[in-house]
Structure formats: C-alpha cells, structure tokens
C-alpha cells in the first residue's frame, strides 16, 4: 500500500472516529472533539494533496465493480489535488474555529448532529474530488449537496432559514440533475463510466452534442458555483448558516462547482468551440458585476460576503472562459495563463473568503448582530479580529501585497492578451468583459472599505457593539493563519504559478511558467535568449541577485523577441519596498519632523458640538448610498415612506422609510419567466370553456393537424 492511500485511510479513519466520538460524547464536549478529529483529518488531506501537487504521485484504486455500471474507482491527480488542498485549508481553519464558535448553540441545537454532519460533509467533499468515475462522482456530489443543505439549515427553528434551505436544495438538485445528464451523455458516447475514458471519446463528438453537454454541465455546476442567473440561493443560504459552515460553503462547496466546470471543459471535453468559452466569459463577467453591485449595497455582513462570493466566482469563471476561448482558437500558452489565473483566484478566494466569514462570524457571535448599520468601532474591542478582517478585506479588494491582487491582475492581463486573436467579435466581447471586471474591481474596493470601516472604525452605533470583548483564542488563531496565507500567496506568486502550471500542463499541452515566471535567478537563466535577458537587465531584473531568495518577478512576455515584455509585476519586491517605505517614513516623522514636540492626544474635532453622538456618524447605508443612486436603474428600489404627524402637517414626529431592492435577476429573469409561464397557463385555461362542442372542435382540429402532418 502506497503512502497516499495510507493517508487517505487515516483521513477516513479520523472522520469515522469523529462521527463515533460525536455520538458517544455529550453535547458540551462535542466542539472540542470535532476540533481535534476534523483538524487532524484536514491535516491529512493537506499532506496528501500537497504531496500530490508537489511531486505528482497520485493514486488510482479500483474499489469494486458493479454489474452493468462498471468499476467504482478513486483516483487523485494534480487537478483534484489542487482543489483538495484548498478545501483542506478551509476545513482546517473552520474546524479549529468551531471549537469556540459552536458553544453558542449549546442547549439550543444538537451539537452531536452537527459534528456527524460536519465530518460526513468533509468525507463527501473528498469523495467528489477523488472520484475516478461518473458513478462515485455523482454519489459524492449528491451526498455533498444534501449534507451541505442540512448544515446550512442547522438553525432550523427560524422560518426564513428553512426557506433558504429549500431554495438551496431545490436549485442544487436541479443543477445535479443537469450535470448528471451532461456527464452521462459523455459517458454514453464513451461507453464507459471511467473518467479516463471520457476524454478519448469526446474528440469524436458532434458539435451539437458538445454544445448540449457543455450547456447542461455548465448549468449544473454553475448553480453550485453561484454564477448568475442561478445565484439567488447563495445570498439567502449564507446569512442563515453558521459562520464555519459559511466559510466552507464559500471556500469549498462553490469551488466544487468550479472544479466541475474545469473538469468537464478541460479534461472530458476540451474546448473546441469558441462559443462555449464566450458564454462562460460573459456569464462570469456578469456574475462578477452583479455580485459586487449587490455586495456594495448590502448591509448584512454575511449576505454581503455571499454576494461577494458570486463576484469572485464570476472572476474565476471569466478567467476560465478566456482560457476556453484561447484553447479553442489554438493559443495554448495564453490558455495556460488564463487557467492558471483562474485556479489561482479560486485558491485565493477560498483563503480570504474563509477568513472574512470567520471574521464576520466572530463579529456576529460577539455583538449579536450582522447589520453593519448597528456596528462600528469594534477595532478597539476586537483588535485581532479587526486586523485579520482588514487583511482579508485588502486581499479581496485586490490590493498588493495580498493574494487577491496577484490572481486578479493575472486574469485582467490574460484578457488584454486577447488582442492576439484576430476576430473583431471576440475582441469586442473581451473588451466589454474586461471593462466589467475593471468596474468590479473598483466597486470591490468601495464595498470592502465600507465593510471594514463601518464595522470596525468610527463609533459604536449600538449598545452591543459598545460592550464587546475579544473572541476566544481558537477563533483568533485560524483567522491569523488564513491572514498569513493571504500574505504568503500574495507575496510569492512565483512559487505558486509553477505548481499550477504543472497541474494544468497535462491538459493543455503547454506551460505558462515560461511565459510568466522567467527563471532569472536560477542557473537556467542562460537558457533565455540573450537579447531578452539584456532587455530585463535594463529593467533591473538582476538587481536582487544574490540578495533575494529566489524568483520575485512575474512577467507576461511574448517570448524571445526584442522588447518582449507585455507586463511585469513583483508583489514580493513591492512588499519589501512597502516595508522599507513605511518604516523609513515612520522614522523620519518620529525622529526628525516631530523632534522636540510632545504628542498630545485629543478627541477628533467635531465642529464644537455639545457631544458627538454615534447617531451623527456615517452608517453603512449612507456610505454606499452614492452607489445605489448611480445604479438606481439596476437596483430597482421600491421605497415606502410613512410620515406620522401630530396636529398639523408641518410637525412630523416620525418618518419611516423602507427600501427594498428588487434583485436584477428577479426583475430581469424570474419575474418575466414567472409571468410568461402564468400567461401561457392562462391562455391554456381559456381553452377550457366548459362547452362540449368546443372540446369536440379541439379533437377535430387535432385530428386534422395530425392528418395534415402525415
């Protein structure tokens, strides 16, 4: 038995032990047991997937064969390993976080069932990723869907939670069905259920079947990934789920949808049609824009993060779409860059979104509210949570030196390379989608400035926000670890990209590493064309040689010609420069500019007010109000105003305002859909006049029609 299988066995054993322990132990001991077993299981998964990613030693086990359905197999390759790795990170953090977090449910809900479901979810996620054939994949997928529904619906006493759970389940099941049909269509043409056989057979597929398979699978996995217009379940499910489940939902489950799209479109059915890529690209950009727009105007911190997940899934999908277009138009090197960017973003999103959800959960559990209008000033009371939330917010806003920047920058760069495709139509689509992504990036900054500032800065706008204390250490540490990862993945893209490249290499047949991370600091530098190298020497690429630990520069270049660079970035150098800059300006200010002056601390200048009250400071609604004014046409607000008066109309004692934004998908997609369905139904109903001769006439008309057709 090889060691990956041993690790897998240990993982399964730990999970099983977790389930048994959960059933044996009393409720109050359960969180700790869950923390230990599932974090150890997560460590196993990390080790297993990390090793696969680094040295490529996957495995393939045939379990048992079922009559008529083929053999059930488990296999782990680099692609699955990559997703397993990001799942492992999130599960590890969420498990440690759960130890203290779950105590809030003690006495209300059964922690025992939570533990059981949690471990089972972990196993089902792993099963989805290591499934080697259609059947085990579908079994794992269905288990994952149902278990995640049960966990989201954990606080089942609230009516809205139940509704959100139903929506999630029904949309998810519709998606599963479509995905199953798509995979079965492929399996049908391959006459096998094994993944490895599907790819060989798909080359011979007719474009019509390819399209059908693509659309069905894209819909099926798109629902899970939360792409528009199938994203409506996501912002409802997230706020009702416990924070650790939210982190897993966003950091792991959504990624499984991406995994499905990736697996189908670069493995089973490599893109040969530009159209499929464009569909992915457009849906992705639309998701990004719609997601961030609603995130910006949302005030519930967890709903906001859910909308932002839609946005990030959109960015990933648009990266994938760009990759499909490049693959189909025979630019494998560019496709490699786009895919690398998309996978990189998926990993980054898992890390920072898990971090932000854990942060939001901490705020929720400490203050009892998720409404940013009611929060404020928490940084004084929750300094560590605030710091780590800030790191997450900076990362998700794609600001260097954090990880969001590296992957979003790469995605946008790969869009710019679309100029190499000689088609005006494709160029136009890329231009629009690129513009949408740029707008998304801008709005994302607004959104997370608001999220951080309105939650952690300023004055506390409610009593609970005034009286909080810092969370338990088991909640702080996982957030700190995730924040550290945000920095590591942001500063060292040059180490991540080669790994991604090796992951994707077998499918694309071309590498992005050469195009992205030239080996300046390695002995292989001599392999580069001399004029290319000298170009970089002019740019100062060798400056850090001997001083810096290794590759620090990510460039996009056209190969060995003169003046080849398209773009270059170096988050690691930026980080060092940033540190030096901040440090030296601190020293200059402290030692030189303010020398001889004493520091006197005074309250902020409030214009000479009697007292600055929290009710006089900006709220989250106020902060995002300009955005809702600008996007008024999209948001479709319905406002109701009620003014209560006394004696005379000029004395208002209360002005009540309620505003509900109709989601764009509701008025653009679902409302027309519902009303046209109703219209058709009404039209049909009109046929039922109740008169016998009318029915006789229908029969006659039908008969005549059939005769005519014959």
């Amino acid at each position: 038995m090889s060691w990956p299988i041993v690790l897998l066995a240990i993982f399964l054993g730990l999970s099983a032990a977790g389930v048994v322990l959960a059933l044996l132990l009393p409720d109050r001991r359960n969180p700790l047991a869950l923390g230990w077993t599932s974090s150890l299981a997560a460590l196993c998964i990390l080790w297993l997937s990390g090793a696969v990613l680094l040295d490529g030693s996957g495995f393939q086990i045939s379990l048992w064969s079922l009559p008529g359905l083929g053999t059930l197999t488990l296999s782990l390759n680099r692609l699955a390993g990559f997703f397993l790795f990001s799942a492992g990170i999130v599960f590890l953090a969420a498990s440690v976080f759960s130890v203290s977090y779950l105590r809030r449910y003690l006495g209300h809900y059964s922690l025992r069932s939570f533990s059981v479901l949690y471990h089972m979810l972990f196993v089902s996620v792993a099963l989805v990723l290591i499934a080697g054939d259609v059947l085990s994949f579908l079994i794992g997928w269905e288990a994952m869907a149902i278990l995640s529904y049960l966990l989201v619906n954990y606080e089942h006493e609230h009516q809205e939670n139940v509704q959100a759970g139903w929506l999630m389940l029904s949309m998810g099941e519709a998606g599963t069905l479509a995905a199953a049909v798509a995979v079965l269509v492929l399996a049908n043409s391959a006459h096998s259920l094994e993944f490895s056989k599907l790819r060989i057979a798909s080359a011979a597929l007719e474009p019509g079947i390819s399209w059908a398979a693509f659309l069905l699978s894209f819909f099926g996995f798109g629902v899970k990934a939360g792409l528009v217009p199938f994203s409506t379940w996501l912002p409802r499910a997230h706020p009702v789920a416990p924070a650790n489940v939210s982190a897993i939902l966003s950091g792991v489950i959504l990624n499984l949808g991406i995994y499905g799209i990736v697996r189908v479109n670069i493995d089973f059915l490599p893109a040969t049609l530009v159209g499929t890529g464009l569909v992915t690209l457009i849906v992705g950009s639309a998701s990004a824009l719609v997601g961030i727009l609603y995130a910006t105007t949302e005030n519930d911190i967890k709903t906001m993060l859910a909308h932002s997940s839609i946005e990030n899934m959109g960015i990933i999908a648009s990266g994938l779409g760009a990759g499909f277009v490049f693959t189909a138009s025979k630019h494998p090197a560019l496709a490699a860059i786009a895919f690398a960017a998309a996978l990189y973003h998926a990993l980054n999103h898992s890390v920072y979104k898990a971090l932000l959800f854990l942060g939001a959960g901490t705020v929720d559990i400490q203050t009892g509210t998720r409404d940013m209008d009611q929060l404020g000033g928490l940084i004084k009371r929750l300094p560590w949570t605030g710091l780590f939330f800030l790191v997450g917010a900076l990362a998700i806003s794609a600001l260097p030196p954090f990880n969001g920047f590296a992957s979003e920058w790469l995605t946008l760069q790969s869009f710019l390379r679309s100029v190499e495709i000689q088609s005006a139509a494709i160029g136009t689509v890329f231009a629009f989608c690129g513009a949408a992504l740029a707008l998304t990036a801008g709005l994302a900054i607004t959104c997370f400035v608001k999220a951080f500032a309105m939650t952690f800065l300023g004055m506390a706008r409610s009593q609970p926000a005034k009286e909080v204390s810092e969370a338990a250490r088991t909640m702080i540490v996982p957030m700190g670890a995730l924040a550290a990862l945000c920095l590591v993945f942001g500063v060292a893209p040059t180490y991540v990209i080669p790994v991604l490249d090796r992951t994707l290499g077998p499918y694309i047949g071309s590498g992005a590493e050469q195009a992205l991370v030239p080996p300046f600091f390695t002995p292989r530098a001599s392999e580069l064309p001399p004029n290319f190298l000298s170009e970089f020497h002019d740019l100062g690429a060798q400056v850090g040689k001997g001083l810096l630990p290794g590759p620090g520069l990510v460039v996009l270049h056209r190969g060995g010609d003169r003046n080849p660079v398209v773009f270059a970035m170096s988050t690691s150098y930026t980080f060092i420069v940033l540190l030096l800059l901040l440090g030296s300006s601190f020293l200059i200010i402290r030692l030189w500019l303010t020398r001889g002056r004493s520091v006197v601390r005074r309250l902020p200048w409030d214009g000479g007010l009697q007292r600055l009250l929290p009710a006089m400071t900006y709220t989250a609604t106020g902060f995002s109000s300009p955005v809702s004014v600008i996007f008024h046409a999209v948001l479709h607000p319905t406002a109701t105003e009620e003014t209560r008066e006394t004696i005379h109309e000029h004395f208002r004692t209360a002005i009540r305002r309620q505003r509900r934004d109709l989601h764009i998908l509701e008025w653009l997609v679902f409302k027309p859909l519902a009303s046209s369905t109703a219209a058709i139904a009404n039209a049909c109903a009109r046929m039922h006049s109740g008169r016998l001769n009318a029915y006789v006439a229908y029969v006659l008309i039908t008969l005549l029609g059939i005769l005519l057709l014959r």
Partner: protein
Amino acid sequence: MANWLDVLKQAEQRWSGKVHASFGTHPRECELDCSPPIVAELCGWLFSEMHYSFGTLIAEQRDSHWELRYVWYGEGDQGIIHVVVRQVLAEEIFGTLIGRVHAVDWNEREAEDLFGLIFKGHPRLGDFVLHNGRWDENVTPMRRCFDGCLPYIHTQMEKDWRPLLVLEAPGAFAMPIGPVYSGVAESALFLLETQGEDVVRAVPRLFYKYRAIEKIAEGRPLQDALLLSERCNGTSAFAHGMAFCQAAEAIEGLKVSTRAKILRVLLAELERFRHHVAAIREICESTGLAVATSQAAILEEELLSLCCAFTGHRYLFGLNAIGGLTRDLEGSACLEAIRVGRNILTRLENLQDALRYSSSFLDRIEDVGTVSQADAEEFGLVGPIARASGVSRDLRELQPYSGYEHFSFAVPCEQEGDGYARLRVLFSEAEEAFRIMEDAALQLPEGPIRIESVNDLGSGAALGWAEAPRGATFHWLRTKTDGSVARYRLATPSFMNWNGFHLAAENFAFQDFPIIMATFGLSVAENDR
C-alpha cells in the same frame, strides 16, 4: 379686500361681546382685545379669510397680567391689527395657534422658553432658545424677576444631550454641520437627517449666538437700547435702528423732519443695495464661481467704502437717532454717492448678464431649494425669499413708513421659488434700491436733521416697523415713566425665515445644502438676537 374698519366691525359682530376694538396712536393701527378662548379662532380667521400676514407675537409681563399681542398686517387700507389677549399672572397656560397659523410656531416656542408660558397643544415645546443640557428647564430669563445683568451660574452642566431625530429607516443618521464651520460663517448647528445622499429632514439648532438683546435692553435709556437694536445684526443695522427710532418717536410723539425721513430712506436703500450685493457674492461663492465671487466682492467693498466715506461708518452704525439722524448729509455728498452707486450698479448689471449665461452656475441653482407659494404663506416667510416664491409682500408698499409713500418703486416678484428666483429677486431689488436712492437724493428738501426729544413724555408703547434687507422687521417698545425701556420686542425677518428653511433644504442632496443656504441668505445673528 376688506377695509380694516370693516374687518373690525365683522370681528366684533362675529364674536360679539368677546372682541373689543380700540385705536392707538398710529392712524392705521388698532387693538382687538379678545378673550383667551377665541384668540385662535380670531387669528385663524384673520389669516385665512381676511388674508392678513402674521407679523410677530409679543409677550409681555405687565404688573398684574400677561399680555400676548399678535401683530397682523395687511395691505394699505387693511392696516395693522394687534390681537391682544390678557390673563392674570398666575394663569400661565395659553392656547396655541399652531393648527391654524403655522407661522406663529417659533414665536410660541420662544415665549415658552423665555417666559415660561405654556401653549397648550403645541407639540414641540422645550429646547429652543436656551439649549437643553446647559440650562435648567425652569430658567425663564424674560420674566421681570430674573436679573439679566448678573452672570448666571449654571447648576447643572452638560446633561445628556439627545437631539430629536425622527427618521426611522435602515442606516439613518444625522449629519451634524457646525456649530463651528470650516470657513467664515456664523455659529449654528444643522442636523441633516439622511440615509446618505438626500437630506430627508433638516433641523437647524440656532441660538448659539443668543445675546438676550430684549432682556438686556430693559432698564436702559432709549438711546442706549438703540445701540442694541443696531447691533442685533450688523449687516442690516440701519433698518433695525430706523424701526426702533420710529417706535420711540411714536411713543414720544416726535414729528421727524422730511429731510431726515428722506435721508433715512436713502440710507436704508443704500444698506439694502450693499446687503444684496453681499448676498449675491455669497451665492456665487457657494457655487465655486471664483471670478464672479471676486467681481461681487469688489462691488461689495466699494459699497462699504462708499458708506464709510459718505456717512462715517462702513455699516451705517451710529447714524440713526431718536428724532432724526445724528449727522446731516450734504446734498453734494449725496449726489457723489449716487454717482459712485450708479457706477457700481452698471457693473452689477454686467455681472448679472454674465451669470445669466453661465450654464454651470445655473445648473447648480435652478430647481434647487424650491419653496412653493403655499408653503411660503403657511410659514409666514418674508422678504426676498417670500417674494421669490410669489408672495409679493413688502412693508414699504403695504404699510409705508418714513415717507416711502412718496416714492414710486417696483416690488420684484418671481414665481418659481427656487435658488435662481431668489438670485433674480436680489438683483432686481438691488437695482430698485438704487433707483429709490436716486429719487431720494433728488427730492431732498432743506430742513432740520434732528428733533431733540423732550424726554419727559414718560411711559408708553408703540410699534415700529421697517422692511429690512432680509424682510419685515417689527420693534415693539414700551417705556417706563423715566423714559427707560420696560419691554423691547425685536421681531426679525431671519427669525421668521429660518422656520421655513427646511422647506428648501429637504429632499435635496447634501452637496446642494451650502448653495441653498447661500440663496436663503439668512443671518444667524439677526435670528439669535
């Protein structure tokens, strides 16, 4: 419209036995004494059926009773009617007029705060002139027993201050502006209730600059109280001084010479001219139009210098005296002033033409801060602000004083009620003011400049009024037997207009707020007194 005698007759018939008319010193003034229960009905009738305008509410603590005097003014023949209601001192509860005449709102709140009277049915009494959190509720400085000259020792300082906020909406907050501003502006606090972009409710918290002029005037000789009335607002000092002098002259029965009257008109119009140019400068400044601001500022400074060279003081302080003026102004000096003024007016007209074609400027003031005519009448707005909303009321025309009846002039009026309408009114009035100055300088007769007061007429009471640059002002004066002030009521246009300011500011975006404030051109000092 009904003649005032008809009005009195109708009132006496309608409430027979409960209303009693008596006549005062002024030919068109009369008092309608009425019993407390019908005062609201009577005033409501005057306001909505007889179309009188509300002037002011004068509360007085007499020796044995409270006396509330609601001053109403109408056009020409309608005269000025004082509705007077009296109650014994122990009876401190009065009925409110709020349901029928909204304009009386702040007057009642002020009387409640300063006299400790209670207006039953008024929904918003309390924190007004004397800020809560600094003053005890039972401090009533305007009562006789309160010594206004002694420093007041606060017993309870800085209690929990909670402003009344009424907007209940997700994320609603009150943006505080002031009391200390970022630029050169008077102290006043605005709480703008909002959800982020549009101002839903604008609440001014005024009286930071309350100097209690009405209180500290009590006991002072008339001519010292005149100094106070001039300094209630430095930028319209002459108009206030003139109204005060007219009240004092009415008590003493002084007949001011025609020369002094005409010179007063000339100076009052010079002040209006200067004030309007300054208001135009502020509007330009609020829209960030630098060249236009500088152009208007040049004109303003030239007018200030003209005032100083012409009369000795840049703000026309120290000119008014009871019985005339403190110094004579030569005919040649007047003509010189007219010459300079004409030059300034020409340049002001150029500026107006240039502004009229600046689309970026018009975009910012057109359809901004709109006050409808109905609201303007309901809230009793006065002056250029009311005239920009189609309420063409001007005391110079309605109830002429100081010989205004001998001048022919137009009262500019606009219908739109927005910022641009107010600006147009300011321009036209500035021009009209100069025309009156010109007329006055030409018809200036010879004669004494000042009639010395005899000073032994003793006690009495009279109302003086004037159309100050910002609108109608009423000065009620009651003297003691030794000629000193017993009660001085100073009703200013800003006090009336601030009450309606929120009409313009609400439902507009934050960034329009400074512009709306500039187009209103209100004075805090004149309001706070």
